[in-house]
């Protein structure tokens, strides 16, 4: 529909990147078969190896039997990240704002790019040329990194299109994806949650073989039957934007930074610093109840240069994932610097003097991709903001919420805590509280109970004996300059039935009782006898 408004995306995909990086590191020429092994199984292999029949998941021995000339190299995520930095740099110099999804895959916002280069096709050509001209370190002067470019309205479509070097027309995302097998939804690990492969398998067994079949399902049926990741996959299958248009606003002061003196020149020192910073960043993000999905890594070098790179993730970054990305990034930069001539100066080359991690996009820590339960949350958020503003006007203590608490009297049974604090009752409501009055409770509970006088028929004050009995039948209640005839009373109810267990020697002086008194006009008053006087604790009306 109006997909053009949100901006086009170009995806730059370097096929078999781990194999390319491993081959470059080992000095193996690109035309020789290479396989990268993880846990004795082929993780990735290069195109020449694939031609010989090597496949992902094969055992080492079988791969070697199919392709005797295969060079087998161990997997190393750090190496992949380090070697990708020159590629990202090459793209970034051509089109600013490149975001790395994973080593081997990056996306650039294509808004304006097409016009600048005279069409997206031309821009893609230029990108392929630029990446092809990148010299990977350790390649021995050999030039050439292969890449494919896809363009589409949405990120996922662009990444999928890059695998076939397709340029999807504006608004054609859904139509492009529709005939593809559902497996493409799980093809890109950087854009799928861990359980996506199982989900795709399930879809296939349900008879949904193409992305179009899946996209044709109503969104609410998908959301009600599958998990969040499935909703996300569905949105992608329909060519809709991944994230709700309004992500959480960035909380202030979440960026973390550190200066280094002496400058960081060694990769391991940089990695250590990156890990510490990542932990610090996540403490702040957690305090703001958000999680980061796009992170900018900024570094300043001794030469006064500034380096920046944005990493984008499908899932919110964990502290470890953040640390990894920072390490790859610093590693890439430092290696590039060293290769650019710093090495010849005996370690006096450029180092990193300052490092900043800055979240670019955050989502709620328990983020929902689709605002299914928006209504509820919005109401709560609105209320929270209004109350916070009143707290700003009157002070934090002025706004309180009640929490049911243990206790005997109607006032004790609700603890008021300042709004925003953890609602902790003053006493545990669970254990039995003898002496509690049953419901209903008074609708008015006085914080400062006014004194009252209870009189018997002869006009003498009614008191409470040491055994908890009234000295006479109440006849008149005087309270707040009003006197009313008593129609009935219930009690006295001992406030603490075990009052004598401690401090028994104080005797009747410590005795405390409650009395419900009904006066004329159907007004029931809760009286409290304490310290030898009656007080009005509450009114039932």
């Amino acid at each position, binding site marked *: 529909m109006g997909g053009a408004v949100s901006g086009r995306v170009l995806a730059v995909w370097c096929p078999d990147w781990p194999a390319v990086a491993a081959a470059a590191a080992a000095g193996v020429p690109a035309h020789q078969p290479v396989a990268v092994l993880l846990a004795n199984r082929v993780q990735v292999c290069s195109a020449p190896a694939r031609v010989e029949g090597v496949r992902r998941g094969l055992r080492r021995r079988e791969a070697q039997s199919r392709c005797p000339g295969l060079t087998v190299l161990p997997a190393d995520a750090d190496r992949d990240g380090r070697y990708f930095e020159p590629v990202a740099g090459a793209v970034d110099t051509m089109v600013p704002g490149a975001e790395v999804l994973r080593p081997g895959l990056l996306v650039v916002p294509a808004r304006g790019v097409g016009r600048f280069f005279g069409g997206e096709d031309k821009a893609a050509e230029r990108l392929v040329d630029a990446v092809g001209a990148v010299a990977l370190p350790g390649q021995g002067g050999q030039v050439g990194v292969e890449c494919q470019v896809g363009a589409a309205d949405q990120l996922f479509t662009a990444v999928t299109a890059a695998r076939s070097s397709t340029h999807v027309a504006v608004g054609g995302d859904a139509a492009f994806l529709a005939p593809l097998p559902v497996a493409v939804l799980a093809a890109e690990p950087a854009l799928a949650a861990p359980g996506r492969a199982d989900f795709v398998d399930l879809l296939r067994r349900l008879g949904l073989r193409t992305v179009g079949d899946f996209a044709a399902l109503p969104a609410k049926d998908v959301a009600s039957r599958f998990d969040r990741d499935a909703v996300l996959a569905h949105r992608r299958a329909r060519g809709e934007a991944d994230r709700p248009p309004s992500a959480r606003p960035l909380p202030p002061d979440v960026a973390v930074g550190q200066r280094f003196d002496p400058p960081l020149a060694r990769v391991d020192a940089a990695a250590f610093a990156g890990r510490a910073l990542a932990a610090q960043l996540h403490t702040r993000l957690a305090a703001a109840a958000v999680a980061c999905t796009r992170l900018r890594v900024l570094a300043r070098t001794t030469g006064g240069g500034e380096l920046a790179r944005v990493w984008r993730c499908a899932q919110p970054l964990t502290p470890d994932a953040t640390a990894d990305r920072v390490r790859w990034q610093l590693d890439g930069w430092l290696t590039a610097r060293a290769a650019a001539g710093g090495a010849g100066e005996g370690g006096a080359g450029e180092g990193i003097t300052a490092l900043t991690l800055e979240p670019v996009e955050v989502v709620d820590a328990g983020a929902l991709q689709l605002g299914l339960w928006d209504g*509820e949350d919005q109401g709560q958020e*609105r209320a*929270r903001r*209004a109350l916070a503003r009143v707290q700003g*006007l*009157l002070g934090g203590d002025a706004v309180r919420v009640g929490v049911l608490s243990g206790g005997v009297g109607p006032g004790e049974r609700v603890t008021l805590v300042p709004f925003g604090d953890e609602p902790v009752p003053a006493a545990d409501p669970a254990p039995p509280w003898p002496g509690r009055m049953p419901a209903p409770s008074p609708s008015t*509970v006085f914080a400062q109970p006014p004194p009252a006088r209870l009189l018997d028929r002869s006009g003498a004050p009614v008191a409470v004996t040491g055994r908890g009995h009234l000295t006479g039948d109440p006849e008149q209640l005087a309270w707040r300059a009003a006197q009313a005839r008593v129609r*009935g009373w219930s*009690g006295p109810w001992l406030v603490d039935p075990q009052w004598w267990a401690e401090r028994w020697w104080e005797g009747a002086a410590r005795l405390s009782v409650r009395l419900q008194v009904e006066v004329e006009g*159907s007004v029931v008053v809760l009286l409290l006898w304490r310290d030898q006087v009656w007080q009005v604790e509450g009114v039932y009306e």
Partner: protein
Amino acid sequence: MFSAVPDGGSGGARAPKAVPDLSGLSQAQKLARLRHHLAGHHLAGQDPARRMLPVPAPVAELLPGGGLPGGSVVGVGGARLLLLALLAQVTAAGGHAAVVALPDLGLLAAAELGADLGRLAVVADPSPDPLEVAAVLLDGMDVVVLGADRAVTPARAQVVAARARGKGAVLIVSGAPWPGLDLRFEARVSRCEGVGRGHGRLRCLLLAVRAWGRSFPERRGLVRLEGDRGLVRVRGAQDFPGATAQDGPGAAGWGAR
């Protein structure tokens, strides 16, 4: 009436929208009926000008729309139990409420009436300007209760009422007179049960409620509040044994208040 209330859900046959008739239903059926009722009246995601805040069933019978219309200013006088019952219903339905300048309100009684205390904020001392605080709260809450201790000038009252109307929130004023109320309640404990002479305990209160507004003449009803295992049940008083005409609001002296 049908067209005035947005169709809430995709349910089958709907009862007429005013008040769900709960007589002769089992507990589960009542719950289902009330949930259905709430779907139409739900607090969130509705056109603020047309939403209705739920009120306890016996009170709903007194109101033409079956609830408190969003954006209105409501005066509640007399017994506070009615106020608490209104707050309990709103917060139990997922709304947010704030109580301003009513320091001695019994929150325990509200909880017994079914209120969700976590959604009920209390601003006991909003000095120097309770009206300002209430106006701020109207931005975010569904119901704001203002305990007015002195008369408010019509100009200021208008400003706050406009705020409520703009946000679809309900301002409930308790205490001093307020110019330009859309709806008024007067409640009085007409009878209480259970207190003997030195025995028994308070078990049940009968509230005589009068409601009238700009758009409808005075209506009267009885609300029975009965303690039941730590909770208070709110019922209409037609099933109140021995409820006679003289318990009603028509009793002598009542009209003069």
